[in-house]
């Protein structure tokens, strides 16, 4: 099911690329659209995906959109990329970021790199991340603290060498407040406006 959704989105994106960018532009990779999401897309023959397959994909997208519109999808989960790590989260979760990270307690942040979002009946998979604005993940920073004291002990036998270091590194605790699907699943045109504002 998710594969079909993917393939539909792929096809849609492919066609839009065709219309907006010339082949030369793509070869030079100068366009702003050449972000990580749609970098050298593997050439897929549009005709290879048959009509009825497309129709089926559209049907699935419609069913997902219907479910989201009626708020029948239940609890959503997502896989987000945060500070070099991926977390599988659902509303109410606590995750910890290790190392220095500027946000302080009480900050409300939105996690933008969503790799995957899913509910009981469907999964939306990004390649590698979902379109900006499709899924919004809100979170609150609730604690910034230090880890327990870690002992780094080194010793070489018969060499009169011994070192002992103690280390505490910063940790940040984050509470996930909400995960929401905010756009219709097959909408690809809106993403373009936001691309210039995005950092990644």
């Amino acid at each position: 099911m998710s594969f079909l959704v993917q393939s539909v989105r792929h096809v849609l994106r492919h066609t839009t690329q065709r219309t907006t960018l010339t082949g030369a532009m793509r070869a030079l990779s100068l366009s702003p659209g050449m972000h990580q999401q749609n970098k050298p897309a593997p050439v897929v023959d549009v005709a290879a995906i048959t009509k009825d397959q497309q129709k089926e994909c559209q049907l699935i997208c419609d069913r997902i959109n219907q479910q989201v519109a009626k708020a029948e999808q239940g609890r959503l989960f997502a896989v987000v990329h945060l500070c070099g790590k991926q977390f599988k989260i659902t509303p109410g979760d606590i995750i910890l970021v290790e190392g220095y990270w500027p946000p302080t307690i009480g900050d409300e942040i939105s996690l933008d790199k969503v790799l995957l979002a899913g509910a009981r009946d469907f999964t939306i998979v990004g390649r590698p991340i979902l379109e900006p604005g499709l899924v919004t993940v809100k979170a609150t920073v609730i604690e910034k603290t230090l880890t327990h004291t870690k002992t780094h002990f080194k010793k070489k036998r018969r060499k009169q060498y011994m070192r002992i270091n103690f280390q505490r590194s910063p940790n940040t605790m984050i509470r996930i407040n909400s995960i929401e699907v905010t756009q219709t699943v097959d909408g690809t045109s809106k993403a373009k406006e936001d691309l210039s504002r995005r950092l990644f």
Partner: protein
Amino acid sequence: MSNSHLFLKSGFPRAPLQNGLGRYVCQLQRITLKFCKNNGSSRGMRDFIENHLVDFAKENPGIVVYVKPRRHRTPVLVGEYLNGEREWLNCRNNTKDEISKWIELLKTQNGCSSSLRLRKMWHTDVPSVQGPWTPFLLRSPDANSIEYPNIDASKPLDIPKTATDKLIELFKKQKLEAGDGAEDLLKQKRAE
């Protein structure tokens, strides 16, 4: 070498009282700065109190700040938290900046952090939304009705082709390509 880690408690990430779900509540309730008015070891603490303490108190109206001078003792920071814990920090010979850093740490944490080793960097109440994976997930239901012992199901999945099989295949392919003309030729040869 230090053996303190042997008896260190370990646990999982928790936040007190569902903090952050509705709104965020600062967990530090009370902070006490103890220092000496004369001693050099309290110099940084005295500087901090002169320059930054009022600003700190104004920025954080939810935190009660006590200042306690005492003669000929090292400066100390004590934080008291909503969960009843109390963290005591020695600030002997610390500079002003170091003290503001430690106060920031006391403010941002939920309790004593030094006494707990975290076993996971993630906590959830709902481990699985779509159900946990099982070996039978997305498998054909035919597998339920198979009776064992079964020859097909017991075969290894990757039997490589033998040389004989490959030869037979090649021969068949040749035959198909050559068509009927080749067969006639073969018959002629056999007749000879």
